[in-house]
């Protein structure tokens, strides 16, 4: 139980670090939304499942999984609303200049 939860938490931490690097390095708001939405959700999933495994079979683990379900409803809704607002406000997506 202990080693499996440590492996899950380390994998989640890796994906969270990748998401933070993407948020800093990517060039546009439309490409940054991929880093915030997709990679962040996967990292949070792995990390919370690892913590629930560490807690064992109890009510606390069930509540942690409920928080995870709430996170999976909330994260895509926020990203979708923000990106739709950015597109309707007239922002142009980033393109590489053709040499």
């Amino acid at each position, binding site marked *: 139980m202990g080693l499996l939860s440590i492996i899950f938490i380390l994998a989640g931490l890796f994906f*969270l670090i990748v998401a933070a690097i993407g948020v800093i390095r990517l060039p546009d*708001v439309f490409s940054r939304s991929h880093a915030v939405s997709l990679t962040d959700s996967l990292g949070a999933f792995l990390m919370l499942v690892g913590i629930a495994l560490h807690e064992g079979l109890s009510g606390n683990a069930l509540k942690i999984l409920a*928080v995870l379900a709430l996170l999976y409803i909330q994260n895509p809704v926020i990203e979708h609303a923000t990106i739709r607002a950015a597109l309707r406000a007239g922002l142009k997506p980033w393109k590489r200049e053709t040499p």
Partner: protein
Amino acid sequence: MKIFLFYVLVVLAFLIGAYLYRVLQGPTIFDRVLGLAGISTKAIILLIVIGVYFERVDMFIDISTGYALLNLMGALAVAKYLEQKGLP
């Protein structure tokens, strides 16, 4: 296990700093809203890890649930307002 959770807390705090750079430096206002959404996700995970670290996880889970609901309403309100108003 306790030492390991402490290092996880330190790494999560540095990740919040990385998102804070995007909030302060973002070229448009939508970058700042996206950075705040990322900070809220990190804060939920950070609260649960703090609860496991201090062995009071039943109390900290309720706090993180309230924070998640509050952040959802706030971010949706800001997004709808910016959609109606257009680019400032």
